[in-house]
């Protein structure tokens, strides 16, 4: 047996730098300090993404992306396919947990100023991944073709349409026509299972590669070469594995006790039910747009809101180049307060969406 393993290792070793890879992993260290636990969220995001891919592929075995049969196929998965209910629920729950984990991971790296040189590209790819996963969530929400997702998509794409110049063509492109229809469903399915995974595969690859090149960042005031480190393999890896197992327990518990509802089949001719909301991670933007007055000076409130969020997304992407203090290993309180404001704003507005009457 040992002989076979050795010969296989030798065979592969002659073709790929296996020895170098093993050397790299065995020498790789993870800094130990009072904020080390934030490192786990990156791994949790990766685990949830893998869960998404696996459960997504399983759902693809039965899902039919047409207006006539999408709802019925999901119903079939949930009601008739062995463990279909579990796979579908895990897919939906892990999608939500993934977005939450990405937000936590993003804000933890923001406050720890992990975007300092030379990790600007790691930050940028991370931000791009956040946007891509939001797009994943938006496109995936429509796929069961139920009442809530149908109208939420209608509202969501309507918001895109208010953008000046590009708004209308972009809305038509997303919807595959003037209205949300079967064409939108097929289109969103294409984005969800082909376009977005392809882009994410590349960006995530770069993000992970950069992480291996630069290693994990240490908080401000610490010097990387002086910080105590623990071996990545197996110590940190075991800890990460425990985290993944705990997440699995949470996912399975949620799926068993709170299976993701299927709702009513979408009826494009019916009037929108009261209280239509997008997925929770979009609600802070949704409520902002609803609360803005119809006109702000000379610009329409909704257009202004969309532009503000667009600028905020660009600002987030460019933070490594704007926070010049962090390059000098100094903390700029303005950026800290911007971060605190953003976190509070997202939390408060999300809660308000669910408690404000008629919102």
């Amino acid at each position, binding site marked *: 047996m040992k002989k076979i393993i050795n010969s296989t290792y030798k065979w592969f070793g002659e073709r790929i730098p296996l020895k170098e890879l093993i050397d790299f992993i065995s020498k790789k260290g993870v800094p130990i300090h009072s904020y080390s636990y934030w490192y786990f969220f990156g791994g949790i995001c990766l685990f949830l993404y893998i869960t998404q891919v696996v459960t997504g592929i399983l759902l693809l075995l039965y899902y039919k992306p047409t207006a006539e049969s999408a709802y019925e196929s999901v*119903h079939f998965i*949930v*009601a008739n396919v062995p463990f279909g*209910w579990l796979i579908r629920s895990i897919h939906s729950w892990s999608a939500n947990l993934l977005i939450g984990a990405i937000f936590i991971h993003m804000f933890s790296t923001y406050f720890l100023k992990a975007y300092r040189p030379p990790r600007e590209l790691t930050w940028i790819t991370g931000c791009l991944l956040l946007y891509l996963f939001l797009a994943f969530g938006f496109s995936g929400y429509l796929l069961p073709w139920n009442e809530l997702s149908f109208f939420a998509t209608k509202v969501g794409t309507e918001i895109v349409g208010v953008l000046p110049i590009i708004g209308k063509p972009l809305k038509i492109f997303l919807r595959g026509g003037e209205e949300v229809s079967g064409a939108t469903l097929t289109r969103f399915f294409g984005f969800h299972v082909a376009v977005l995974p392809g882009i994410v595969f590349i960006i995530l690859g770069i993000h992970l590669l950069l992480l291996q090149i630069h290693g994990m960042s240490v908080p401000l005031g610490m010097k990387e070469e002086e910080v105590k480190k*623990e*071996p990545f393999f*197996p*110590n940190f890896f*075991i*800890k990460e*594995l*425990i985290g993944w*197992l*705990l997440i*699995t*327990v949470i996912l*399975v*518990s949620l799926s*068993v*006790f*709170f*299976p993701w509802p*299927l709702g009513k089949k979408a009826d494009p001719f019916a009037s929108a039910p009261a209280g239509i909301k997008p997925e929770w991670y979009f609600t802070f933007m949704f409520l902002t747009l609803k609360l803005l007055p119809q006109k702000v000076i000379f610009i329409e409130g909704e257009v202004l809101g969309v532009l503000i969020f667009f600028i905020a997304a660009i600002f987030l992407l460019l933070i490594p180049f704007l926070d010049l203090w962090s390059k000098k290993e100094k903390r700029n309180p303005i950026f800290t307060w911007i971060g605190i404001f953003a976190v509070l704003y997202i939390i408060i507005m999300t809660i308000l969406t669910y408690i404000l009457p008629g919102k």
Partner: protein
Amino acid sequence: MKRIIICVIFLLIYRFSFAKEDSCIECHNELEGEFKKPVEMMKSDIHYKFGISCVSCHGGNPTIHDESAMDKKYGFIGVPNKKEILKICSKCHSNPEYMKKFNPTIRVDQLELYKTSKHGILLEKGDEKVAVCSDCHSSHGILPPIDSRSTVFPQKIPETCGKCHKDKEYMKEYGIPINQVEEYLEGVHGEALMKKGDLSAPSCNDCHGNHGSTPPGVENISYVCRECHSSAADLFVKSPHKSAFDKLKISECEACHGNHKIEKPSDEMLEPERGICSSCHEKDSKGFLVSQKIYSDIKNLKDKIMESELILNKVYKMGIEVSDAFVMLEDAKSSLINARNLVHSFEIEKIEEAINEGLKICEKVYNEGKKGEKEAITRRKGYGLSLIFFIILIFALLLKLKLREEKTL
């Protein structure tokens, strides 16, 4: 200066031309209270919108700007009496050629119908207290019946009729009850129309007629009800009750359901001891026993539906997909509705057929619920086992980590 003169001339011409159009409006607009009110009201009046003004009903000469405009030589009649109102309104409304200009589908038989109504008959006899056109449609601010502000809009009709029919003093000499509106509002039709806003629910005029309004007699009350409840009426006509009711001169529908205060029909109406049937059928008589059987059959199906619904809801809350079973349950509910309707035939075989159909569906639904319950328990057991597995795995990893850390130290 030149400009001011032009403006003054223009204003004078404008005022003069306006006054020339209708002196009634001009003068009454300057008066107060009751005299001004018609001018204010007619702004929304449908007649005024079609160019029909004061002179068309009251006579007079609107081109004269003093009191002589109201001279009798110009046909001025002032406030018309009840009989005059009929003549005034029917002058146009009974003329198909004229009315066609405004609405080709409008009816022109109102006066003819009115003459046959209780109101019309009494007016003919000289009773000036009865309602004429203006009492229901109002006088100066007349709106089409489809306008929700109109006095004859379905939801306003009980109030319009009640203006007289609720008034104890006013109705004293006629010797008829004055609680019809009150009872109607408490009944199922009143609730549907007034509280639920269902405009298809009947108001006073839908049963009594509007222009030809009259209290439906024993013979024709069922014809009124069957306008909407045709299925129940068809079943009743073929039932043995029809001839019995006719012989006894009992109103068909009204005998069990009442008239103005029609309560929501319930299965308890069939309850042998306290239900309606026992008011005619003596205990242990054939009719009594049939009602007992129908009541117990319907109750049985109702209980089975409830039982099936209960288990489905329980299973649904446990996260099991049972929407197909919920759809099936709707079929069972339809069978119950069908059985309830078939009660009007009083044919036990027909009712039992519908009941059995419902019971069969309930059995299927209940079994689905039980299957779901079993599935939910299996899921929870599986969850428990997987949880134990995960906990063991986590502890094993923690142990490995501890050993590793000890080794590193």
